[in-house]
């Protein structure tokens, strides 16, 4: 080692960043062969991983996404039956609920209690 402090410092710098013994001949050979860098590019791998993650998450989470939740509610609605057709005014308009296909399946005219099951929107 030299006594020159500059030379000692330079040697220390070179030693700190010395490449492995096989690295330099390998890159020299590859450069002379003018090969493209064969090692897969890191950013390509990352881009592929990101795209795959997006597709997988879309496939997994989209079908199982929560559907718009409808709160069950009870309501008392008053309507009338005319010629077997039940007409019940709803808060957002009128809904006609028909009776059965046959006349005898339809309820009698008048007032009564009708149990309706379904979503109120």
């Amino acid at each position, binding site marked *: 080692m030299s006594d020159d*402090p*500059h030379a000692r*410092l*330079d040697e*220390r*710098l*070179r*030693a*700190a*960043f*010395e*490449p*492995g013994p096989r*690295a*330099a*001949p*390998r*890159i*020299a050979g*590859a*450069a*002379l062969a*003018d*090969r493209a*860098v064969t*090692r897969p590019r*890191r*950013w390509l*791998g*990352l881009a592929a*991983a*990101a795209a795959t993650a997006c597709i997988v998450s879309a496939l997994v989470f989209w079908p199982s996404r929560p559907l718009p939740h409808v709160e069950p509610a009870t309501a008392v609605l008053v309507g009338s039956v005319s010629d077997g057709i039940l007409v019940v005014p709803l808060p957002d308009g009128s809904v006609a609920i028909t009776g059965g296909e046959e006349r005898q399946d339809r309820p009698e005219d008048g007032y009564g209690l009708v149990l309706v099951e379904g979503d109120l929107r």
Partner: protein
Amino acid sequence: MGGQGSSVIVDLEGTIAELAPRVLRYANARLGDKALAEDVAQESLAALVRACRNGGAPDSPEAFVFAIARRRAGRAAWRRRLWAPLELASGARSSAPSPEARAIARDESERVRNALAHLSSRDREAILLVAVGGVSMSGAASALGLSISAVKMRVSRARARLAALLEERNV
């Protein structure tokens, strides 16, 4: 003619073999990432090979290669900063060597790198080319687009500051 052609190839091989460890060391110091450093060094040397084979051999192969390495290392560092959050998120960085192996292998280089980080970017670039890459003053001047005296001044200032920093930390 054939003999002349083969002597050019022999010279080129010798030049590449001589430059390879130096440019690799420089890229290593610039980037602190062996894989990236190899990419940068190989691309810089391949550019010289292409230039020579296309009949455009530069006057100073050393200055040519290091100017390209310097530019590519800058781009690689920029790209790495851009991708760092995504790499961290995807766990790509966890495939690095174990902390123990890294500590043993890079202890000294990390110390020197930390000291280098305290230099101005202009002084750091000059000392990396001259001291780490072994580039001549004229080659460094050409690669940096400066006069030789300006490079000498930067290298001298960087050496003094670096020596003081390393001394100060008692390492």
